[in-house]
């Protein structure tokens, strides 16, 4: 049976792992390679690296660390950040990444999703979506350039429309990051995830809000996501991945132990 995935996310800035609260105030969490190795040994199913500065700074993610990670890690990992062209994606994959994730560049040029899917196959093209629930308008909005608060903009895309659009264009997986919940550890936005799940035919990864083990169980059992991504609870050792997976097994979630 296909297992639900536990995915630690490592936000990378200037070659080190950082974590902010609601995308702000980044604090250094540690070096990339030892952290990646620790997560793999604890039983992570996959890793995601986001170069959170890359898209906003108009530069390609520094690739040297991708090779260093690929050398020591024996689980899959995905690299996101500043991948705007086929060449960018090709370089990242050549360095040993298994998947590439695009976010802001897909919003700037949605045809990029199709170009990448045709070249590399839909299975290694992930689209990250930063979704924000606006209390005033009661709308779910897609945000762009979230790596830099000063440059973050609200796009004209409604989250659900964008989820449909990226699938039609060839996205092989969607990471839905609910910005309202990010870094505050109050639980995933189950309502939004369930609504996206209904229209999402490709694997869906929940992101933003994990604070305790029950939050993961809820995302799997209530919103039927394929994977759950989290950062601070793992970096700060609030949750141990091995213990989390034991807990999920008891909650009857299909999990790889």
């Amino acid at each position, binding site marked *: *049976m*296909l*297992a*639900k*995935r536990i995915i630690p996310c490592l936000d990378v800035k200037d070659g080190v792992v950082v974590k902010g609260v609601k995308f702000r105030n980044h604090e250094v969490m540690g070096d990339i390679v030892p952290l990646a190795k620790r997560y*793999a040994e604890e039983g992570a*199913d*996959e890793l995601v690296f986001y170069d959170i500065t890359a898209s906003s700074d108009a530069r390609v993610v520094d690739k040297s660390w991708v*090779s260093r990670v*690929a*050398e*020591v890690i*024996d*689980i*899959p990992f995905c690299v996101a950040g500043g991948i705007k062209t086929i060449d960018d994606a*090709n370089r990242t*994959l*050549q*360095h*040993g990444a*298994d*998947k590439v994730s695009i976010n802001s560049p897909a919003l700037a040029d949605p045809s990029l999703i*199709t170009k990448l*899917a*045709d*070249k*590399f*196959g*839909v*299975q*290694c093209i992930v689209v990250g979506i930063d979704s924000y629930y606006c209390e005033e308008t009661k709308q779910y909005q897609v945000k762009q350039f979230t790596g830099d608060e000063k440059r973050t903009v609200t796009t004209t895309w409604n989250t659900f429309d964008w989820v449909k659009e990226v699938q039609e*264009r*060839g996205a*092989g*997986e969607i990471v839905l990051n609910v910005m309202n919940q990010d870094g505050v550890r109050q639980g995933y936005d189950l309502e939004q995830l369930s609504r996206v799940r209904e229209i*999402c*035919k*490709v*694997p*869906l990864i929940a992101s933003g809000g994990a604070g305790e083990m029950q939050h993961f169980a809820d995302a799997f059992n209530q919103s*039927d996501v*394929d*994977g759950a991504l989290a950062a601070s609870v793992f970096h700060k050792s609030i949750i141990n991945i091995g213990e989390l997976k034991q807990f999920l097994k008891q909650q009857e979630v299909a999990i*790889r132990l």
Partner: protein
Amino acid sequence: MIVIIDTGCANLSSVKFAVERLGYKVVISKEREDILGADKLFLPGVGTATEAMENLRQRGLIELVKQVDKPLLGICLGMQMLAEFSIEGGAKQAEEPVPCLGLVPGTVSLMEPAPGQRLPHMGWNQIQPQSDHPLFKDIEPGSYFYFVHSYALPVGEHTLAECDYGNAFTAAVGRDNFFGVQFHPERSGKAGAQLIKNFLEM
């Protein structure tokens, strides 16, 4: 000598690193003398069948790979290329089946997941290997391996391991000296490392 065939597809280096982690030396090459002189070969693949077969053709590798008489392991798309045909063509299905290497019988086709199952089939799934095959030495039935694909080879007479996602499909295949695995052993933790070790010790 262990050779990873330079198919021009991405992801060659993760296979290289996985072999090196086991303590073996390995070279990435598309040269005739390396490929025909190798003791063990890997045929990796990421991308689409259309793209990958075109890469092989441009590099003059199609006839060369068919001449190999030492154990060769195709990985993921590399396994699918061993089949006769594939219908994979990128964001959409290929208009006509893409001719592949024809080293194992069968046509690679789009998977048909059960309701509530998604495509691509992405993540860790359990396999049921044929008992006693050296490729699966010390690997328990039900072990998890990492899969990322939407197309698969149906179960056939050369299937060495099955996996189930909607329908049973070929997770590993072997005919004569040509072997293939649909999953990524280089990304499948300890079980994956064991499989690569088994292949190298065959």
